[in-house]
């Protein structure tokens, strides 16, 4: 029965270290060789990874169906936008109504503004969480969705702080010229999330997901742990929002309509609710997939004959069909709730061999 291979702790740490070194080398290589179009897509992939991870913590691990991610992202994005544009540009930018004097003279370095955005998102999540996290299931989803819209509408109307519907342009594009910003934050987020889930708190989150009545009976304070998970999720969504603002160089409230949250939901469902490895795969697939299917939105003709259907909109049709297929045939996502482990990866050839030599194997091969 025991087909699983065991690897000593030291060897596992060494392999992990090796993996990170290879990953960093790959990023360094990509950073030096790709053009700005690909670089932008890769940056977006990394940012969506962070958002997916933060949403998976709340939805996939703690079992709270929350759809407020776009709102928290907006808070982080606006924090970076407002606090990193040079002071002298602000008069020209806020031409409808001058910027509020309290913040007019404050300019922060990007990292500080990004962290501030994360903190603000966390604070808002704490305030929202207190009333909203008493709800369950679909009701929680609707309430968080509503709050994310409220955040957006408040931003549309705070003319002297957010510049309202005009948005904020010419944000210093700190993250767009390099892959390092987004990828290093994404890696740090991944490492933190993994450590958190492996800790006792992570187990408590999973207990709430599995059975909240039993979790409470085992002494887990449901409210405190739900709020904790929600606040951590919002913090990282805020950070990702900050990176996003600096990548695009412009923010306006319309970017944070609630359908944006569905992209992240898609990422975690596709990758697997409750799997961080899956989220990373999902984020890259969804982001890059949406980008590379863009050819379908252009008219296409072969040998002078225009192919019908190739017009703006086809991309989303094809993309949606792909998703439907995935959800139909892999309804627990690509990874389910499993993670990549060294035991699984190194045991994979063995598992494949077993599959062919001894009839159908029972487990999922490389996923342990």
């Amino acid at each position, binding site marked *: 029965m025991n087909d699983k291979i065991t690897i000593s702790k030291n060897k596992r740490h060494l392999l992990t270290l090796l993996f990170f070194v290879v990953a960093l080398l790959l990023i360094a290589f990509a950073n030096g060789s790709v053009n700005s179009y690909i670089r932008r897509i890769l940056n977006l992939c990394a940012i969506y990874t962070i958002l997916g991870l933060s949403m998976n913590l709340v939805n996939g691990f703690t079992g709270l169906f929350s759809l407020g991610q776009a709102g928290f992202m907006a808070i982080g994005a606006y924090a970076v936008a407002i606090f990193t544009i040079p002071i002298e540009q602000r008069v020209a930018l806020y031409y409808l109504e001058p910027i509020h004097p309290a913040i007019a003279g404050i300019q922060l370095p990007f990292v500080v503004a990004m962290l501030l955005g994360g903190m603000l998102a966390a604070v808002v999540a704490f305030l929202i969480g207190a009333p909203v996290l008493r709800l369950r299931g679909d009701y929680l989803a609707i309430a968080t969705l509503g709050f994310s819209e409220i955040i957006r509408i408040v931003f549309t109307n705070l003319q002297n702080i957010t510049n309202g519907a005009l948005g904020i342009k010419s944000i210093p594009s700190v993250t767009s010229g390099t892959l390092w910003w987004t990828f290093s934050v994404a890696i740090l987020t991944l490492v933190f999330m993994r450590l*958190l889930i492996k*800790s006792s708190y992570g187990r408590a989150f999973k207990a709430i997901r599995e059975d909240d009545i*039993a*979790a409470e*009976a085992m*002494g887990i304070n449901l409210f405190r742990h739900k709020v904790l998970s929600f606040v951590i999720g919002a913090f990282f969504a805020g950070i990702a929002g900050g990176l996003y603002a600096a990548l695009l160089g412009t923010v306006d409230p319309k970017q944070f309509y609630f359908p944006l949250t569905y992209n992240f939901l898609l990422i975690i469902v596709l990758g697997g609710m409750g799997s961080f490895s899956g989220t990373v795969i999902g984020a890259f697939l969804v982001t890059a997939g949406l980008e590379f299917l863009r050819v379908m939105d252009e008219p296409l003709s072969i040998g002078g004959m225009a192919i019908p259907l190739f017009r703006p909109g086809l991309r989303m049709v094809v993309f949606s069909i792909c998703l439907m297929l995935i959800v139909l045939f892999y309804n627990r996502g690509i990874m389910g709730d499993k993670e990549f482990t060294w035991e699984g990866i190194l045991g994979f050839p063995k598992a494949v061999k077993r599959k062919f030599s001894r009839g159908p194997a029972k487990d999922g091969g490389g996923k342990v």
Partner: protein
Amino acid sequence: MSVLYAKNATIRFGGVVAVNDFSFEVNQGEIVALIGPNGAGKTTAFNIITGVYSPTAGDVYFDADNSGNSLKITGLSPDRITKLGMARTFQNIRLFKNLTVLENVLIAKHLRMKSNFLSAAFTFPWARKEERAMQEEALQLLKELKLDSAKDEISSSLPYGMQRRLEIARALATQPRLLLLDEPAAGMNPQETEDLTAFIRSIREKYDLTVFMIEHHMDLVMEISDRIYVLDFGEMIAHGTAEEVQNNPRVMEAYLGVEADA
């Protein structure tokens, strides 16, 4: 000395009085059973004790630290009550199904965790020490309850009897003084029930527990309990030793029904 007692606990759901004016006490070291026909309000009574429901009237008192001063626990949340030293199992097994046996027990140890989430995630020395102690205690407990060979199995894949045992192990992991068992022998065959009887006795000795349980298996109830309370339609209709309860006409009536008029 009573570990747990209730005074006139009553709960109404709309027009239905699920438990009416129920007073009882459970003394240190006793095994007390709560029996009654289906729908008598036994589980509801447990839910009042453990804080899932707040009683409409009446109060529940729990002597958490063996000091003799009982604390009023009505209105406290279930997690607070568990922290005070009362743990329970469920009528329909409620394990954390997709998690391993070891994780199930570790989760029940979380309530004594002192480190905050940041030091736990970054495994700061004190948090690591706590985590290691938790792991050791959990493994020790699994060993004592003969579940250690299955520690890495997914809990829902265990055989039924072992799932029941794991649920008790999980409750014990919270380090209770008082253990509430809601139909621990449900779905068990006579042999398994007999094993369970011995098992409950042994954990009472080993962990110095007081046990309050709901049970339908009369063999188990009659053999193991020091005292029995009988509920019917939310009312307590009898209480006493096994023998007293067995010969009580009202109990027979509740279980067997009244003979139809000729």
